């Protein structure tokens, strides 16, 4: 296989207070791929993304980004990652531009802040304090922050939360254009329609266990009329009644 593996998990498990949240998960994400993570609330999607981002220590196994262990070589891995995990946090009294500028300083890179804001549909609000932003604007700004330093891997946890239908379409187009530029995107969601339209491959997780990894086009062809039912069945733990 010629394509480089961007993200891989090997026997990845995570427990909180003795309770398994992820159980020996094995996934491989190729460079330049949009990879969907599907699961109901509490399935372990966010935990998986946090493990890949080096925010959590695996109980067993490991997550790797371009071959580097996410927990043990965290700082090296984080240079290649952009992430929007859970609710984006900003310095409320600062403007959107100032927030992005500080982010770039921490990342140790420079980039065009105005361009990044335009990319996510926030062209004229750079000087506005984030405290005045709506939920949707915050989400857009969170996406801008996750991509502004041009990461090789983008981790997006429910990225369309709080966005209106127009913004959802714009973000979908943005993700596809980023993928075309070679960025690898892992996108978690419980919104099936979004996953269907955006991702190339999808992993379904239920109760922390991998249920299925599938090519989205193949799934669409196989389950033309009942893809939603099929995926919901899988998300419930594989109990699918056609």
């Amino acid at each position, binding site marked *: 296989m010629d394509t480089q593996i961007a993200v891989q998990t090997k026997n990845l498990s995570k427990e*909180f207070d003795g309770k398994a949240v992820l159980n020996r998960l094995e996934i491989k994400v190729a460079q330049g791929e949009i990879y969907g993570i599907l699961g109901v609330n509490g399935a372990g999607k966010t935990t998986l993304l*946090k493990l890949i*981002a*080096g*925010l*959590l*220590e695996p109980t067993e196994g490991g997550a790797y980004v371009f071959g580097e262990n996410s927990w043990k070589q*965290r*700082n*090296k*891995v*984080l*240079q290649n*990652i952009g*992430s929007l*995990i*859970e*609710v*984006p*946090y900003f*310095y409320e*009294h*600062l403007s959107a531009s*100032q927030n992005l500028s*500080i982010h770039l*300083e*921490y*990342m*140790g890179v420079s980039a065009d802040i105005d361009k990044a804001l335009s990319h996510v549909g926030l062209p004229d609000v750079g000087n506005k304090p984030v405290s005045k932003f709506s939920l949707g604007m915050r989400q857009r700004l969170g996406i801008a922050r996750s991509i502004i330093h041009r990461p090789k891997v983008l981790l997006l946890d429910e990225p369309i939360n709080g966005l209106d239908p127009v913004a959802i379409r714009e973000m979908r187009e943005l993700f596809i254009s980023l993928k075309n530029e070679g960025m690898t995107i892992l996108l978690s969601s419980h919104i099936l329609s979004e996953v269907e339209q955006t991702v190339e491959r999808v992993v379904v997780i239920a109760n922390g266990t991998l249920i299925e990894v599938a090519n989205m086009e193949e799934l669409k062809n196989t389950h033309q009329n009942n893809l939603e039912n099929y995926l919901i069945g899988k998300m419930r733990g594989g109990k699918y009644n056609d």
Partner: protein
Amino acid sequence: MIKLIGLELRRNKISTYLISSIIIAIVVLGFCFLFGYGPQIEASKGVLPSDTAFEIFMTWKGCIPLIGTISLGAFTVMSAIMNAKFTVEEYAGKKAIHLFSYPVKRSRILFAKCILVFSFTCIAMFTCNIAVISLFGAISNAVGILPETFTTSEFLYLLKTTAVLSLLAASVGLVAMRIGFIKKSLSWTIVSAIILVGPCGNLFSMFPDRTFTIMLIGMAILLVIGLIVFLELLSKVNKMEAV
């Protein structure tokens, strides 16, 4: 490290603490006049100024530690609030996800935060206390509030007392931050600082002849404890998870 400290200054509202320091200085100046005129008012009512309690208010050797202790209490609480805002809250809950997403050694970020708060507390308290008591000394010399003159000798005593108390305030803030870190709570940090600094005033007044020595010992103990808990926290933060 300088860059990280600069970033901390950019993303936190440092002006709030500058204004707080000025307000503390004004309040402490008010206390200076209260203590300065207290014995005169009491004397006018026939209470003899030779009482032990009056001696504290009538000599610079008594007044400087007393006013310094008030500054100590105020700046310790401010230091605890800064530590809670700059550090404790940043490592709590979802904010930690953001902080841990940068490819910078976590201990370096924490180090920058603590150094900034420690230095700010020391400088702010040192500057305010020196400015306030020197101003009060100059006014007293001019209008005769205290019977003693505020001379170079008193100023030097003020310098060394304030230096020790400033380090003590910053050290208590550091220890309180570590306690607050256990529960990741702002109120725990502030209450810890108050509990730690509370007995200081009593200790200083218990040994009026050796006030400076007691201050020095107290500062040394708290500074050592502060350094130990700080080093322990530096190692802990590298293993922290953003749950």
